[in-house]
């Protein structure tokens, strides 16, 4: 079982990223649950999307022992990485996150939003870049399934740019 929490600010596309990750797991023939919590705002406000992937039935839908926390804002690090064990993966977008808890050993400092804006012209694809980095790091789902799941969810005409965003994320995590 792998438990992942994708956190940031409302509008960064993290709920959609969680849905895509869970759909990719189903394509891999696994079980998956996605859930989220958010405030009443449509944009802004802390937002988290949680995904649990397992070979077996998943009972409790919320993450209790995270293996990975993605944090796309400083508030998200402060709020949602508290229960991450020392050897858990913390993945931060250095565009927005300046400080990380000292006890964590496994921190990926990735300039997600900065890089995607520079290379693809829009911050909009940051969530897909993050997915690429998560898949490359955790192998939670296959690259084939995440690609299929992304293409299934994104608007027509944006397939190529989303594929490039995914590749960008995979490459970022490899560094």
């Amino acid at each position, binding site marked *: 079982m792998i438990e992942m929490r994708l956190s940031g600010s409302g509008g960064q596309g993290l709920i959609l990223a969680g*849905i895509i990750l*869970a*759909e990719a797991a*189903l394509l891999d023939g696994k*079980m*998956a*649950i*996605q*859930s*989220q*919590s*958010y*405030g*009443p705002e449509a944009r802004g406000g802390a937002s988290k999307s949680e995904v649990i992937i397992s070979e077996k039935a*998943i*009972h*409790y*839908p*919320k993450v*209790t022992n995270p293996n990975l926390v993605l944090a796309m804002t400083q508030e998200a690090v402060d709020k949602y990485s508290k229960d991450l064990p020392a050897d858990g993966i913390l993945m931060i977008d250095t565009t927005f996150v300046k400080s990380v808890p000292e006890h964590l050993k496994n921190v990926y400092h990735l300039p997600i939003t900065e890089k995607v804006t520079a290379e693809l012209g829009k911050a909009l694809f940051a969530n897909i870049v993050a997915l690429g980095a998560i898949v490359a790091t955790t192998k939670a789902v296959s690259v084939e399934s995440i690609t299929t799941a992304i293409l299934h969810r994104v608007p027509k005409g944006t397939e190529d740019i989303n594929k490039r965003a995914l590749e960008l994320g995979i490459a970022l995590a490899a560094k």
Partner: protein
Amino acid sequence: MAKVLLLQGNQACAEGAIAAGVTFFAGYPITPSTEIAEIMAKRLPEVGGKFIQMEDEIAGIGAIVGASLTGKKVLTATSGPGFSLKQEFIGYATIAEVPIVIANVQRVGPSTGQPTAPAQGDMMQARWGTHGDHPVIALTPASVPECFTLTIKAYELSEKYRMPVLLMLDEIIGHMREKIEIPDYDTIEKPVRKGPRVGPSEFKAYEPDSDGVPPMADFGTGYRYHVTGLVHDETGFPNGSAAATEKLLKRLHDKVERDIDKITMYEEYKLDDAEIAIVTYGGTARSAYAAIDMAREEGIKVGMFRLISVWPFPEKEIAQLAEKVKVIVVPELNYGQMVGEVKKAAEGKVPVKPMSKYDSEPISPKELLAFVKNL
């Protein structure tokens, strides 16, 4: 062809309604139920149905009562504040015997409370929210697939007994996404309403068959009758006599009570050799499965009786459970609601312990395990 999808509980509820043959939705969107309205707005025109966003929740349920009288299968969806507003018409549909289904995706209350956080605080409101003596059927799904199947079941029961059926979801189940296999809707048996067997001139709108349920004529088909929230006789017109009052109220209760074994639905999980029974429902049941698996690994004999139909309450089954186990634990996301019903049914045979949580967070499996170990 069956399809494997990742759906939210709310989406599965809306799809279940479409699969059951619903062609009319009226309501007012409210978190955390909004996806039901959103999906019905998209899906109903695709199947030749109608969606109306009304001015408020009261109008939403009023419109579905009217549409049901014309023979449509109907749905409205809401959360706590809207559920409060709908209570008056729930009573009206109960006494006027109009089949309707109301989905209530529970959030923290009272009042506007915590719009995006889960709770199970409307369970007693589901039972007694509308005034006066009345029967209630309320179902609580604990998974996304069950949101689909129980929504179809809600229509079967609502059409059969001619009464409102409440789908009591909570934010956990309504908003979580998990795997569901959706069958081809053509393979799903659509609940059918019992129609009149006599012509319009002989038809008495509230003359029951031997099952206590009167056949129902659709408005607009030549049958005319009076629909009222007042106590009425077989003609449908108000009748203020003691005899008519007793007869109607007794029949409304009897049509449900005589079939209670058919209506009652529950699941037993690892209960065979259990010394500790967890009685729970909805989203909290998800914690219970996990906590029970953890406890069993430590050799603690615990199992779950999961309420699927919460109303009518399965008193007989809980009484039998109380004979079998040493203690009953009732975890709920409220200050203690269904625990009172469990205590009543257990009649003091075993201790019944509430585990109430009302801080807007779900009960985690670890918390529940710790509670069980400290008994």
